[in-house]
């Protein structure tokens, strides 16, 4: 566990701005959902925006890190959209 936390700290320190940016987007996402609670269309738009941000963040981060590859972009798209479709059922039951 100690080793895991140490590795996380190293990773976050190395890309502090990128992780802070994502964390801020996450807080905005949760705040948006809370403000527009019960408004299904707005909830879906907020979720879609967050998923899009996550994919764009991935592309941006790997460009900066000079490690962008089609396989990486695909990974972000697959995870992002799988979760989008799963949660969509709960927003539009």
């Amino acid at each position: 566990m100690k080793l895991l936390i140490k590795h996380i700290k190293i990773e976050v320190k190395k890309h502090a701005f990128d992780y802070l940016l994502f964390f801020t987007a996450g807080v905005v996402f949760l705040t948006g959902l809370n403000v527009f609670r019960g408004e299904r269309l707005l909830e879906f738009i907020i979720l879609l925006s967050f998923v899009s941000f996550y994919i764009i963040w991935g592309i941006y981060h790997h460009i900066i890190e000079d490690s962008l590859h089609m396989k990486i972009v695909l990974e972000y798209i697959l995870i992002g959209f799988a979760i989008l479709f799963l949660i969509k059922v709960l927003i539009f039951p």
Partner: protein
Amino acid sequence: MKHIIDTLHHFFVPRHSNNFNAKLLHHDFLTIYLILAILFGAGIKHIRQNSNILGYATDVTIEKLYELTNSERSKNHLNTLNYNEELAQAAREKAADMFAKDYWAHYGPTGETPWQFILGSGYQYEYAGENLAKNFVFSDGVVNAWLESTTHRENLLRKEYTDVGFAVVNGVLNGEETTLVVQIFAKPLYAKDTVAQAPQSAEPETVVKIPATQVLAYDDSPTNNSFFATYLNINVVFFAVLMIALILDFYFAMKLNLIRVRGKNLIHFMFITFVAIGTLIIIRGSIT
């Protein structure tokens, strides 16, 4: 046993057999998750359109709302409310009015008040109150949200009330499929002292039947009361498995100093965590 452990390692831990990427995070597996998620959504929509198995009324039921309301009142040493069909009728009328005139409030755009629906149902009240909620997925979420709001809580725990009626109605509000919950409390103007006037004869006790849910004419699909709980549990398991795979993959990749062409596990983990918290907000709906 060794075979099971070996398989688990193959799925969760990066090593030579999985090309140093946890198998559950391989592109083929991620594609399967996406396809399953799409099929789930499409399947539910298809079933709903072609049969009456699922409605979009979620898991909110009058029976559960009634039970939870009385349970909260009991915890606060208050009298148990009787289910009143006239108040339920008033609640249904109120919900129908909100859908017809496209509003979601205690007072309508043309001056409608909650009281006119109660009186219209034939119930003469001395005290009355109304709680509204929309787009909740579970009954306990509705009652909890009411309890967290001071005004709704006061309404729910008012000692004067003796009767309650509910409506859980599906319809289209502001162009969106919406599930409305209307709860109306009241005390009749000429309240009978039920204890004093209880018949001494051997007549059977009248049992008030509580409908599982009330659905208006424009949506005749009944609800499946366990579907969303099951679906949510599936999501929780899926999220948990994915997060464990991400953490283990991250840990061993760091430990073994692996250099791989793949996304950042930490950001995937953060993304899933935020969405999981967001899901808890989404299923809560809103009250007024």
